[in-house]
Structure formats: C-alpha cells, structure tokens
C-alpha cells in the first residue's frame, strides 16, 4: 500500500516537474550577451540570430540571476534581464513610501556592525 502510494506520488510530481521546466520564450536585448557561469561576457549575439523557438533552460543560477541554455550545440549562460522566461517570477512595483529627509538636528551616534554574511 505504502509502496503504491509512493510510486503514485513520484509519478505525479515528476509530471509537475516536467511541466514546470522553464523555457526561454523570447530575447529582449539586442545584442544578447552570452556569458560564463560567473557572468563574464564571452561574446554577443545579434537579436536576429537568436533562435525563434522556445529554448529549454538547463540550469538556473538564482544567486546571479543567470540561466544556462544550449545555443548551436554550445552551453552558454544568459542574463535573465535579457529574456522572457516561462514560467517567470512575478514581481510587481512595491510602490514604497517616498523617504522623507531627517530633521536637521537628528543624530545617530552609531556605526553599522558586521552583517550576517561576514565570518569575522
């Protein structure tokens, strides 16, 4: 019973995972920058030479917001700002409150300490 349930669940989630595989739907920049995994420019590709069909995304580097795709048999990294992805994360304008100035006599007699990311 348990094994059947596990198999069923696995089959279900693999379908979801497959359908959620992101694709590059369109290129928005001209030229499109082809990068390495650190975001360093390798070469540029004119928009007219980019593939017209959706491209499957092979890897997604969330830290640098880069995606890896295969272009003409070569694996390259692209900047997500240059692309329209499907599916893509929807982030709307936060419409933050415009910051006010501080009073001319306001004081803050402290200095910021080490952030959470420093190992010192």
């Amino acid at each position: 019973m348990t094994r059947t349930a596990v198999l069923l669940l696995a089959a279900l989630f693999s379908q979801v995972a497959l359908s959620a595989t992101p694709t590059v739907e369109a290129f928005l920049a001209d030229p499109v920058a082809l990068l390495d995994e650190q975001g360093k420019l390798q070469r540029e590709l004119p928009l007219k030479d980019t593939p017209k069909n959706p491209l499957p995304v092979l890897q997604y580097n969330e830290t640098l917001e880069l995606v890896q795709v295969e272009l003409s048999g070569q694996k390259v990294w692209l900047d997500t700002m240059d692309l329209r992805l499907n599916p893509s994360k929807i982030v709307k304008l936060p419409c933050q409150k415009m910051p006010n100035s501080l009073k001319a006599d306001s004081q803050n007699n402290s200095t910021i300490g080490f952030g959470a990311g420093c190992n010192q």
Partner: protein
Amino acid sequence: MSAKSPLFSRWQYFLGAVVLLLAVLDPFGISSSSNNASAQWLNRVFASSYQSKGQEKIAVIVIDDAYLMRNNTYWPMPYSEQSKLFKRLLAYKPKAVFVDLLYSHDHSQGEPAQGSQLLANVFERYRRQGIALLLANTGQSRGEDGQANTLASLAETSSPTLVAWSGFSDKYPLAVETPLGVMETPALSLYREYCRDHPCAELPNDARAAMNEPPIAIQWGLNLAPEQISIADIAHCSTTNGVILNFLKQLSQAVFWKLGDSVQVRCPYSLTLSASDLEVSTPEDRALLAQLLRDRLVLVGANITSTGDLVQSPVHGKIPGIYLHAMALDNLLTLGMQYDREPANLLNFEVNWLDLLEISLLGLIALLKAAHARSLAAFNACGSVLQRSAFFKSPIPSWLLVIGVLIALSYWLHAIHITPVNVLAALMLSLVLFGEKLEAFFERKN
C-alpha cells in the same frame, strides 16, 4: 549737533573702523554664521521656483534598509547581490551611472563565486555597450599609510570620480588636486557625459582647467519630479503653494522658530527610485522603469541606518549624501557653467568684493542715520523757522532707499550668479533708522 558740524565724531570714526575690522576678521565666525543663515534662508524661499530642467535628466537609486530586508541580505551587500542590482539597473540603458559606494575592501577574498569579480563582470559588460560607469574614489593611494580606495579589479572597469575633499566649506568643487592627480567630482563627470550629446558652453577642457573654476554654491530645489508619483507613494510629501506663500511661510518660520516646530522634513527633490523598484518583472512595470531610466544620468547611493553618509540641505534637513551630488549635477544641467558661486578672495585673504559691498551697505545705513541726526539737531536748534527736507522728515524714505538698494543689489547678484549679500543682517540693521522715531514715541507715552 549743528548743520555745519561733521557727520561723524572721532569716536564714531573709531567705532566704524572697529566694525570694519570685525567684519573683515570675522572673530568667532559670527559674521560667517550670519551670512550662511541668510543664504540658506534665501535658498529655502526660492527653492519652490527652482527650474526643473536638470531634474528631467537625473534619477537617484537608493539602496535602503527595506531593500536589504526584502532580499534577506546585509550591509555591506555581498558582491553577488550587488551584481544583480547593477545588471538590473544597467539593462535599462541609462546614459551614465555614478556609484557612490566605496569598494575599498574585498570582503569575499578567496571565494571567487562571491568576490568582487562578479561585480566587475557586470560593469565590464555594460561599459562595452557604451554606458559610462563612474565609481567613488577617495583620491588616495590605496594601502599607503593605511589609506583606503577602490579595489583594482573594479577601478579597471570604471572611471574614478572624487567623493572626498576638504577646504571648500559647504561649496561643491568641480575638481580637486589629490595624491593621484587632479580628479573631477561626480557632478562634473556626469555633466561631461551629458555634454557628449548636448551643446554645453564653457565646459572646462580637462580636470586641471576645472580645478580653476570656483566651487558651486548649490541651490536646492523643492518641487518633486512629476514622474515621482508613478513610482512611489508621495501622499505624505509636503507640497508648495507658490513663491509668495512660500516666502511668507519661510518668513514666519524664520521669525517664530522658537515658538513652533521649526525643523523641516521634506521628500528629496531628485527623482528617486528604491533599489527594490529595479526587481520588477511584469512587462508594464519594466516599461515604466525603461521610461524613467533610459538615457538618464543615474546616481546610486545608500540610505542604510548607521552608515553615516548624510548631508545637510538648507531646504530638506539631513538627507543621504547621494543627493548632494545629484543637486550639484542639477545646478550644472540647469545653469551650465554659470552656476551660483562666491566671488574669488582678494589678495589671498578670506575676504572678497561681496564682503566689501556688504560693508558699503552698512556704511550707507550709518550715513543716513547720521544725516537724520544732524537734520533733527538743526531743526531743534532753529525751531520751526528752518524748513526740514522732506527726505529727512521721516525715516521711511531713507529706509525705503536702503531696501531699494538691497533689492537692486540682490537682483544684480542673482543675474550674475553670485551668492546673495547678507539680506537678513542688512534688513535688521536698516531698522536703526527708526531709532529716533521710536525714542520719540516712547517719550510721548511717558
């Protein structure tokens, strides 16, 4: 005092010489403080009529605490976070970007996946596309005598602009001599980028020529950019009601500052976007950002609690330092090289011809006061036999003459872009002309 006697006694001449000496030497900085108070008040009065020509070409991106919390990150931000932020900004193709962050220490050494090279890669990529990238620089030799300055990897992919200087009081220099050579400040560097596509008269040929130009006496604007409402909630930002009402408001605040809340807080003048705004992904929002940022001169700075980069604006109070550079640039875009400045000092002393003009105004008030005293003395001596000149019958014509001279002088100085005379001091001192009238009034009462 008779009609034939000299206007001033020896004692009065001596007193005048002492006043002159006090004005020139400025002991305890009282005269300078009064001059600053007058200039700042005038800036507040006329801030609402400051032209928006420069405002249309500038955008400020502020990295704030809200952005750090939203992205669960920290300050100083890791290079990976910064590379994301800058590539989001640069993708909108601004004309030039000045980054008011000093990259003096690589806080991710030994970790290439987190190092400064990530940011250098982004800078390099967009610099190749023709976007000018200007990075804050202290003008000091990095590592020498413990001096901090921009990391080499980032300096190679950007142009340095000087953000640290001294000896200019609250004025903004165009270029300064540093141990690394003459360096231009962000406002002039960005203005040069603007001038690549637009005609700009009298632009200094190079940094050395710019160093010989007087520093900017920054004039601050008040009205928010019309586009600001499309990107942020500005409901709490105070609005203006025209120059006359603003004048009356500023006058009452200046006179009765002890009786009420005199401290003003306002929203910054330059078009401001939060770093969080750059994260948008919907086509409509991205189109809006493209409209706001494309071909603009963009300045990126931080407003993080306890980081300390705050400057004093006469119009706003304390605001993040990035707005000082933005306002200096705005002055250059609006007025060109005819920006407001102080006259040059005379003979290497901290005295200029404007100081002499102020002393002359003081002399005029003293002269009129003495002439009034003599006229009254002559009238009293001869009784009603002598006909008093209409001009000296009342102090009002003399006072109006002083005010007229003051207005004409202020207008002329404004036309030639020289900082104004000490209007407040002149106004206060002109009231001595009413001294005898007031004395007579109180004597009648008694």
